[in-house]
């Protein structure tokens, strides 16, 4: 845990709205994140919990530099000590391009990164398909032929295939059945070991967080209200809001 963190966020504030006036009406500027600071250590799974609308997703967008897409802005420091992190989305049905085969989808990040021949790329895709427990024959399939769990495996694979150091997983299992959830969580843990990954694991489900994370930050209305190891947090919650969340999860 004493290695250099892969990600450090310092005093991050983020806002929506307040952009240039459209048709003479200036939208009100709304602050979503308030002075958020934390870090993710190499090889760590950091859980981020809080109710919906508390700024979890905004935080992940800010980290990825995607806030502009949503009309948001931010100030503060976000220090990446790794190549560009990748993202796994909640909804496995919109995260894969329906016009292409699974093989094409997995190959695309490699094509963009470059440095591999077509033959090497195909081999890497097949290897990855085996690692995520699907098998090489899935390269020919189309996303709409797959189940939700299979799709989520593919989107995880397409995030991991370029070997980033950090993966942001925004509610990666909340759209799935409980039995599938366990399999996907196991896959995340396996891939973490294999590729030395770190995760920011965003969830509203404390049971899932307890299973997979080593440390947790609790967020409420854009503020980080508590930060602790999983065991400490679940055994001795300090903040009343954390207690409330824990009580609700019982």
């Amino acid at each position: 845990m004493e290695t250099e963190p892969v990600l450090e966020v310092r005093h991050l504030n983020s806002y929506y709205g307040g952009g240039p006036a459209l048709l003479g009406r200036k939208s009100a500027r709304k602050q979503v994140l308030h002075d958020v600071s934390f870090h993710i250590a190499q090889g760590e799974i950091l859980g981020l919990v809080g109710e919906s609308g508390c700024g979890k997703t905004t935080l992940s967008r800010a980290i990825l530099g995607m806030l502009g897409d949503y009309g948001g802005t931010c100030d503060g420091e976000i220090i990446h000590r790794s190549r560009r992190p990748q993202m796994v989305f909640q909804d496995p049905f919109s995260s894969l391009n329906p016009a292409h085969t699974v093989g094409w989808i997995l190959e695309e990040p490699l094509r963009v990164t470059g440095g591999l021949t077509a033959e090497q790329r195909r081999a890497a895709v097949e290897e990855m398909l085996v690692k995520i427990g699907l098998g090489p024959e899935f390269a020919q399939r189309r996303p709409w032929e797959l189940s939700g769990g299979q799709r989520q495996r593919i989107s995880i694979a397409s995030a991991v295939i370029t070997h980033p150091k950090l993966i942001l997983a925004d509610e990666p299992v909340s759209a799935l059945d409980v039995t599938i959830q366990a399999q996907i969580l196991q896959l995340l843990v396996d891939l973490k070991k294999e590729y030395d990954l770190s995760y920011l694991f965003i969830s509203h489900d404390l049971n899932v967080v307890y299973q997979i994370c080593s440390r947790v930050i609790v967020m409420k209305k854009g503020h980080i209200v508590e930060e602790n190891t999983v065991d400490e947090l679940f055994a001795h919650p300090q903040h009343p809001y954390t207690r409330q969340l824990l009580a609700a999860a019982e």
Partner: protein
Amino acid sequence: MKEKGNPLLYIGGAISGVMVALILVGYVWTPYGPTAMDAAAKNQGPSLLHLLGTDNFGRDIFSRVLSGAGTSFFIAVCVVAIGCVFGILIGSLCGYFGGPADVILTRVCDSITAFPSILLALVVVSIIGQGTYNVIFALGVLFIPSFARIVRGEFARCRDLNYIRSARLVGVGKVRILFSHILPNTMPVLLSAVTIGFNNAILSEASMSFLGIGIQPPYASLGSMLSDSQTYLGSAPWYALSVGGAIALLILGFSLLSEGLQRRAQRDQEV
């Protein structure tokens, strides 16, 4: 994939397939020369010698319909190609990037569609002159907005989907996102737009030629032939009937095809 319960697609495909096949044959071979006159066989009704009869000059109507349909078909294909290519370019850029350019271009497209297209084509042709290629140019430009609008809508819909977001995150270039990631997803909609556009092109060209501002003699298209045949409606009604029938069959075939494609696209999206 399964094509259960989509008879429109089959019937439309069959009709337009036969028509297109006949037209293609007509490019290389017709029973008689389309302009060859036979003084001994004027205004004859349909017979085994002349399948659809002859006109007042003794020209074989079946051959003329084949070559006229060929001209109309060629114009329609070119018009749709122009409209489609530029429509995709404008629509994709507007839909994906948005912003002031999008607002302006969309309004320009709206105002073009607000005019009756024949009127605009008339204006264009009277400025740049008549002739096959000028007709193609005029109609082609007028067909851009309808394609641009459809493509724009599809690109705007796809822009914020997660798979496009992750493509951006991975660092896929903008051009590649537009044409390798989003464009294939617009294909079902685009395909049915192409067939509808093709119909409209056939009809617009026929109307223009019927009004005498389209294809000029000695070339014939279905529209100019329909216009000629009016004069002989009493003496040789089979002339007008066969030309009109050819137009109707072409339109019917492609309409059904388009409807069938649209239903298939809808069903695919439901999956």
